[in-house]
């Protein structure tokens, strides 16, 4: 009994001393001390959900508190983004962000948030655009695709996700000098794969991560960007085609800089985990490491690019 209580006293003393040390070193209110809410603005099972689930264990370990994932879906992400916009900016609510989706959904529309004003914590992974066809397609190469599109302008159907896919495909069509019929699919790439597998459209516009995942059943004609994609060997890249989807984490506008710093450090720790890295690379994504300033500049560049 005596032994036990003296142990207890030691623990209490230690805790008090520890608390003093903590206050002494940071000189500010300790953060975080309660669970952090992580908004996922897209349905479970998609790319955003995967990012959140991938980061959750690492973030919890680094922050020392629970990270609660909540889904606020609808309006192509706009519902979740505007929810974060209205949340308290104390660092206890953060959200997934997808660039350029957040910029394009907000462009010229009444969505209730301004993508340039959020406090960005960092981008974690990105995938370049990919043009896919079914394995049994009459198109075996990009040249063949371009040739037929030029011979029959507007007769080749290409599916993509909403207006983001539309713009993406328009970019590529402009570079290749072709005309196509765009077929918008809502609800993400998952809905698009059966359409392309069943030959209901001639081609589909997705990202390299999806092209990697469906390699067994679908062929990729081209990927975007200056270099080929490692998980898609032998697939030509269109240098001038700069399309890219980026996944990251953000906080409401005006979140204190020191808290963003804590969150950024936790994010970098989570993404540095070899397990997380291999998951990212296996899925055909390129890992990214950013400071908050770099992340903000990244979004600002996307806003600028889509402003005209």
């Amino acid at each position, binding site marked *: 009994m005596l032994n036990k209580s003296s142990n207890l006293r030691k623990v209490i003393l230690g805790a008090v001393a520890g608390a003093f040390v903590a206050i002494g070193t940071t000189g500010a209110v300790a953060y975080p001390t309660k669970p952090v809410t992580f908004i996922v603005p897209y*349905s*479970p*099972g*998609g790319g955003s*959900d*995967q990012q959140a*689930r*991938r980061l*959750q264990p690492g973030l919890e370990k680094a922050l020392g508190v629970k990270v609660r994932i*909540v*889904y*606020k*879906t*609808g*309006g*192509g992400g*706009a*519902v979740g983004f*505007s*929810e974060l916009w209205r949340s308290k900016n104390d660092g206890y609510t953060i959200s997934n962000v997808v660039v350029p989706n957040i910029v394009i*959904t907000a462009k010229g*529309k*009444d*969505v*209730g948030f301004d993508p340039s004003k959020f406090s960005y914590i960092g981008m974690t992974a990105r995938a370049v655009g990919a043009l896919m066809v079914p394995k049994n397609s009459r198109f075996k190469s990009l040249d063949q695709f371009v040739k037929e599109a030029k011979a029959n302008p*507007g*007769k*080749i*159907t290409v*599916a993509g996700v*909403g*207006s983001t896919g*539309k713009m993406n495909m328009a970019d590529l069509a402009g570079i290749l000098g072709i005309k*196509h*019929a*765009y*077929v*918008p*699919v*809502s*609800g993400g790439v*998952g*809905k698009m*794969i*059966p*359409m392309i*597998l*069943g030959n*209901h*459209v001639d081609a589909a516009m997705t990202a390299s991560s999806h092209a990697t*995942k*469906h390699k*067994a*059943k679908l062929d990729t004609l081209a990927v975007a960007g200056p270099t080929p994609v490692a998980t898609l060997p032998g697939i030509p890249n269109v240098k001038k085609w700069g399309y890219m989807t980026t996944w990251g984490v953000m906080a409401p506008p005006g979140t204190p800089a020191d808290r963003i710093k804590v969150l950024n450090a936790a994010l970098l720790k989570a993404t540095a985990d070899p397990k997380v890295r*291999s*998951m990212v690379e*296996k*899925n055909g994504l390129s890992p990214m490491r950013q400071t908050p300033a770099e992340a903000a500049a990244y979004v600002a560049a996307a806003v600028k690019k889509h402003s005209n």
Partner: protein
Amino acid sequence: MIEGLMQALSPGYFFYLTLGVLIGMFVGTLPGLTATMGTALLVPFTFALPTGEGIAMLGGLYVCAMFSDSIPACLVNTPGTPAAMATAFDGHPMVQQGRGQEAIVASCFSSTIGTVFGAGCYLVLAWPLIEIALKFGPPEFFWLGIFALTIIGSLAGDSILKGLAGGAIGLLISCVGISHGNELARFTFGVPELRGGVSLVAGLIGIFAIPQVLSMVTELRKKEFIAEYKPKGGETFKTIRKVVAHPLHLLRSSAIGSFIGILPGAGSPIAAIVSYNEAVRWSKDKSQYGKGDLRGVTASEIANNAAAPAAMIPLVTLGVPGSSPAAVIAGALMLRGLNPGPELFQSDGALVYSFGWALLFAGIVTFILGSLFAPLLVKIIRIPLRLLAPLIMLLATIGAYAIRNNIFDVYIMLGLGVFVFIVRRFGFHPGPIGLGLILGPIIEPSLIQALYISDAVGVGKVFFTGTINITLITLSILSVLFVIWTRRRDKKLQADGGERSN
């Protein structure tokens, strides 16, 4: 396949499967907690388990939720998930007639039949079936939606016109929010929350639960309980005998459910609706449908359960989930570094098959637990209305909020509920409105996509060629003609009867 069976039969595996089923029972019973939400919430807890056990637990939850959603559908006329809407059409009248135990046991047994059939398809017929499913493109989905709409004919009650108007109201409500494809805000009236559209789950709770609560309150003086109920011994076996008395009906409902489950994006709610419609069409005596026909409950429950394992078929053959809970299970696999798709058959064949067996066993475990709990569950209707009404109100509010953590969905639920309560007095049935809400998200995007494809290929070729299109169009036309014909005949019979009694 045998290796998978052995894996699924190990005690630890069975334990987690049963645990998943138990959680599913709870998730399905509460309106607003859908199978999608349930599986998504459970995923983090399965990480401590080996992959096989982890996804078996998720599969067990999914299968059982497709049964237990019929409990509130039957007892208080509020589907626990959208998939149980058609179950309520006959399940609730059965309860009102004092046949509550029969309704619950029947839906439990049908759920097991459906699950076993669907899981059988997953284990044996996955590859040939997916080939047929892939033939469904935008125009085929459009015609499937139109075909499913013809069920209004058997739901409408006295006036077919009011039924059609109800369906149109439902379809219009499903159009609210940011549009498919080009992301334009429609019918949002400057209200930011409406951009996300009307949540299907909150909408259905509003349409079914709120008018129910309101009429309980207005009828308080007339009756004290929903219905009389006395537990009866031997009811389980009697009911099972009644269910298996229609083998063709069981087979048809199972086949419809499995096939529609495979179509990516259609899922359990559509499967149940089409199956119910076909049950009505193929029955000789249709007079009891909507008034407590056991076959109405079994048609819906068999199909929505068969669709659950079937929705896993596109996941393992194509890497594309056939329903939202299947998407969550796909996510759980990916987090473990497994790529759901055809490669999984080669790399982890035993896992793919053990999952199929797990779904099958989940169906059987659901029956055992469900029939044990049935007498207990039915006691809910013996709760005095003055206590039951606020209880349902509380659950409805929590459910509508929980689906998206959005208080606005609660307002939508209340608004729609009061609206339906009022129009019900003018002879409108909530069924067609709910039908429009469920089918809108299938019909509208597929129509838009098919029209865009028509730009390149031509409208005639897109909409009116191909075996599936022609078949669905023919079935829809026949379906409408059939409704017109039976209504005429019934009117004539009534008129004749009237003359004779004079």
